[in-house]
Structures are given as structure tokens and as C-alpha cells.
């Protein structure tokens, strides 16, 4: 159990670091997906299978796909590599690295306090999560749907083709992502799709 956790943690951190240093956007994306999967494993280990599943499906699946889609759309690929190199001179790295180190130190200090219970108390089944979602957090779900609606309308407005400049249509991708997430209130999701078409 312990070994698997540490291994997953190392993979996650390594993948993120690799993601940062890549010039090529696609490579970076792939590394990011890898780190997300590692995080999903950690979730599982902490007894949150439902969260792990969600992490894989929604996070790694939909959002990263979205990124890949945009990268493909703007075919950033290798061509942009040359530019990136110029921007990543070592001196640029110095200041942020120091800050990151200090912040990391602070957080480690905070976490090292006595209060944290390390061992997971046991598995929390998806049913409990579902009950919580539709018990006290019902309003949260409703609000999340409004949140996604706002994001949808905003993205639609911004993404719409400008009158003068050429542009590709990208907005239909979002609708299904937003739809799948909110889960419960399918009715609203349905209406989004229709508006998207207009």
C-alpha cells in the first residue's frame, strides 16, 4: 500500500515537472495527463474510488481532450518550439524557482504539525458521496450548474466568430462537457445544447 502511494506521488510530481520544461505543447499535454492519472491513483489509495473515477473521466478525459483539441486547432505543434526556447533561459527560472521552494517549505512546515491523521479511516463509497451531494449540498449542485451556464455563455460569446476576422467554430465542443458534469439536472443541459446551435 505505502510503496504504491509513494510511487504514484513521485510519478505525479515528475510528470508535472516534465510538463513545465517541454517546448512542445503536445508533449507537455501528455505529461499533464500522466500526472493527472497518477493523482487518480492516489485518490483510489485514499479510499475515494468515486473521486478517482471522476478524476480520470472528467479531468483527464474531457478537460485535457479540450486542451488537445485547441492545440490541434491552432496547430501549435513543433513550429512554436523555436519561440519557446528563447523564453526559457535559465535566469528566467531562477526567481520563480526560489519562490516555489520557499512556498513548498512553508507548506511542509504547516503540514508537519501534529494535527494531521495520516491513515485513511477507510473507504468512502460513491453512495455516501452521492447522498452528501443530494443532502446538504443540493444547493451547491444547483449553483454549480449556474456556474457552468455562465461559463458556457461567456465562452460562446468570446468564441463566436468575429465579424471581420476569419475563425473556426469551436463552441459545440463545450456543450457536451458542461452537460455531462452537472449530471443531475439534465433538463437544463438540454436547453444549453439548443442555444448553442443558434
Amino acid at each position, binding site marked *: 500500500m505505502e510503496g504504491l502511494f509513494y510511487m504514484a506521488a513521485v510519478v505525479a510530481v515528475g510528470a508535472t515537472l516534465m510538463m513545465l520544461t517541454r517546448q512542445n*505543447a503536445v508533449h507537455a499535454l501528455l505529461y499533464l495527463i500522466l500526472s493527472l492519472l497518477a493523482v487518480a491513483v492516489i485518490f483510489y489509495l485514499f479510499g475515494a474510488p468515486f473521486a478517482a473515477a471522476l478524476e480520470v473521466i472528467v479531468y483527464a478525459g474531457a478537460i485535457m481532450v479540450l486542451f488537445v483539441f485547441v492545440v490541434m486547432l*491552432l496547430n501549435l505543434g513543433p513550429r512554436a518550439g523555436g519561440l519557446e526556447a528563447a523564453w526559457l533561459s535559465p535566469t528566467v527560472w531562477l526567481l520563480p524557482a526560489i519562490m516555489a521552494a520557499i512556498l513548498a517549505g512553508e507548506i511542509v512546515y504547516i503540514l508537519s504539525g501534529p494535527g494531521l491523521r495520516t491513515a485513511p479511516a477507510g473507504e468512502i463509497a460513491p453512495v455516501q458521496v452521492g447522498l452528501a451531494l443530494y443532502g446538504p449540498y443540493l444547493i451547491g449542485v444547483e449553483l454549480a450548474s449556474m456556474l457552468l451556464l*455562465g461559463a458556457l455563455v*461567456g465562452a460562446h460569446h468570446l468564441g463566436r466568430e*468575429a465579424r471581420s476576422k476569419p475563425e473556426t467554430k469551436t463552441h459545440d465542443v463545450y456543450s457536451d462537457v458542461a452537460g455531462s458534469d452537472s449530471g443531475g439536472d439534465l433538463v437544463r443541459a438540454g436547453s444549453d445544447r439548443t442555444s448553442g446551435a443558434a
Partner: protein
Amino acid sequence: MIGLLVRRNLLFILMSLEVMVNAAGLAFVVAGAGHGQADGQAMFIFILAIAAAEVAVGLALVLLLYHRYRTLDVDVASQLRG
């Protein structure tokens, strides 16, 4: 968080943002697991929704930036100063 400060490509900034939010989600799930409550995971789900919304608007902005300046370097868009 380092990506946010280092990379000038807006896309990379968005990706590092995603990592940061995800980290927070992880912290919540672990805390929830620690206390044996489902609240952590519920919170995680909401964080997912938030991340998704941010990404959606973020990428829309990326497209706009690309069409306007043909590049994703975020420092191009820094006319507002002083």
C-alpha cells in the same frame, strides 16, 4: 505554480493553473478521507466544475488572443500599464 510565473505561453499558464486547482482538490479529498466524511469528495466534484468552467473561458480567451496577435505570448497583451 512555477509554470504560472515562468511560461509566457498562455496555454502553459492555463495548464499550470489546472495543476494548482487539482492540487487543491487532492488536498480536499485527502482531508475528507482523513475525517472520514464525504464532504471532501463533494468539494472535489465542485472543484472539478470550477476547473472546467475556468478552462472553458480560458481557452476561449486563448483563441481570441491567437486570432488577434497570431501568438500565444501573454506579454504581447500588456498595453495597460502605469
